[in-house]
């Protein structure tokens, strides 16, 4: 069995090496060794589901050896990871029993997106749970907090309208004390559908000298192009980018063999990467930092542990 050892931090920064390992793995059954994970965020967990599904389609269900850390396993349980991992992986290791009191500290656990009705579910849940978190912990004015739901709605609809496949969404808040000294909210939305290149090819490929994943991402991300001949279409990603920029956040979209992102001052990402290992569909990561409370003498939430 081929082993892919997962890093201590299961998040967007360390996602690409895992994709490379999967790409380089020879045929046959895979084992994802998660025993060393000490930290996982929505991007990492949803990404792991996506990679497991790719492995399953390639050969058979991969084995996932669960983290040694009881805290991490507990957190992944609260995020709903195992429920969605069951059909994808053969799980090895002990799992926590679900909490029976229904109480959760999670902003939005891993949620499948199969239809527009699921988008309504996401918006309802986030409005019920998230407004207080966004306003009190991340200092967003109420009207901006509502726009967070709009972002989630538009990014989830992207799956239904363009992927021709189902996907997952998850979001949670954390303290990024070392990196930017503030709390952040992390959103991950992923699918394993046709991807941007295939989605836009019919309407746009002929106008490009070289149509590839990078060109398709630039067309959608930078120019708001879509497969529909309707000026009302294609604004979802543009509006998301506008909000993310206003709030000093980061957005990245990986599709096929390329990744494009808006890089804020606090980050060191690359605006456009090409020739990455192929991964079907689209993987979207959004990080929104807390707004700086100008009335406070310290940066908001500058101390404390991870908000999970």
């Amino acid at each position: 069995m081929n082993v892919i050892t997962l890093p201590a931090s299961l998040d967007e920064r360390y996602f690409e090496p895992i994709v490379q390992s999967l790409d380089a793995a020879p045929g046959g059954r895979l084992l994802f060794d998660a025993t060393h994970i000490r930290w996982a965020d929505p991007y990492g967990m949803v990404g792991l589901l996506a990679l497991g599904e790719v492995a399953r389609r390639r050969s058979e269900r991969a084995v996932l050896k669960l983290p040694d850390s009881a805290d991490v396993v507990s957190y992944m349980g609260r995020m709903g990871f195992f429920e969605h991992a069951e059909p994808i992986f053969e799980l090895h290791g002990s799992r926590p029993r679900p909490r029976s009191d229904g109480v959760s500290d999670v902003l939005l656990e891993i949620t499948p997106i199969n239809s527009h009705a699921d988008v309504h579910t996401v918006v309802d849940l986030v409005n019920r749970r998230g407004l207080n978190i966004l306003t009190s912990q991340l200092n967003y004015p109420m009207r901006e907090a509502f726009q967070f739901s709009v972002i989630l709605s538009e990014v989830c609809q992207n799956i239904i309208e363009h992927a021709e496949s189902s996907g997952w969404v998850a979001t949670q808040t954390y303290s990024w004390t070392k990196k930017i000294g503030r709390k952040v909210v992390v959103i991950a939305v992923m699918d394993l559908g046709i991807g941007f290149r295939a989605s836009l090819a019919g309407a746009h490929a002929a106008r490009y000298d070289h149509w590839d994943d990078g060109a398709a991402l630039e067309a959608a991300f930078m120019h708001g192009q879509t497969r529909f001949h309707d000026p009302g279409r294609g604004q979802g990603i543009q509006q998301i980018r506008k909000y993310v920029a206003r709030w000093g956040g980061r957005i990245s979209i990986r599709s096929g063999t390329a990744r494009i992102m808006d890089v804020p001052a606090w980050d060191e990402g690359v605006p456009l990467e090409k020739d990455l290992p192929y991964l079907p569909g689209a993987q979207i990561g959004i990080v929104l930092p807390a707004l700086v409370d100008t009335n406070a003498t310290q940066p908001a939430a500058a101390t404390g542990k991870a908000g999970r």
Partner: protein
Amino acid sequence: MHSSGNVIPFSFDLQTLVQRSVASLYSHLVTRPTGRALRLGIESQIGEIGSVCLSVLDFTQVVVLDYSCADEAVAKLIQRYQMADRPADAYFVARGLREQHRDPIDEVLNRHGLVLVAEVEGGFTLLGRADPLEHDAWHALQRVRLGRADDVAVELNVAAPGVVAALERLAARRVVLRRGTADSFCSLTTLLPARSA
């Protein structure tokens, strides 16, 4: 041409319509199918009136409005009734908008080159794409309420011909009402029923 006296004010509570159209499932105006259902419901009710009407799109109970739903429910509705072959003679005013609704509606209207009279946070404004003189003429007519283009030009302190042309464009885009055959215009908001507290 229609005199204001023939216009039937007609109010749509968007929340009620959504619940009726989408089986009472959703409390937020998100996704394109929701917007389409909403638009079809509104079109159906306008069709039942069978006369020129002023349709009030009431957003008072709406919390979240996304761009996709705004495009389907608002932009495509306005667009349909601006066409020469519109199914009925309807004018639209959006009421009860809060700041979080302004951007989605303004954006989708701009994308289609449309305009809409809207009450945002209690004050009436013109959302969408209009040139500066059209904006000024519309706001001046709001103050005058009902008057000739000359009155609006005096209010703006600019030459009358430009104002006449601007008001005629606004009338063609159905955000002001032209009264009879005279060079006289009426703001849509003067036709609104008084709002209960």
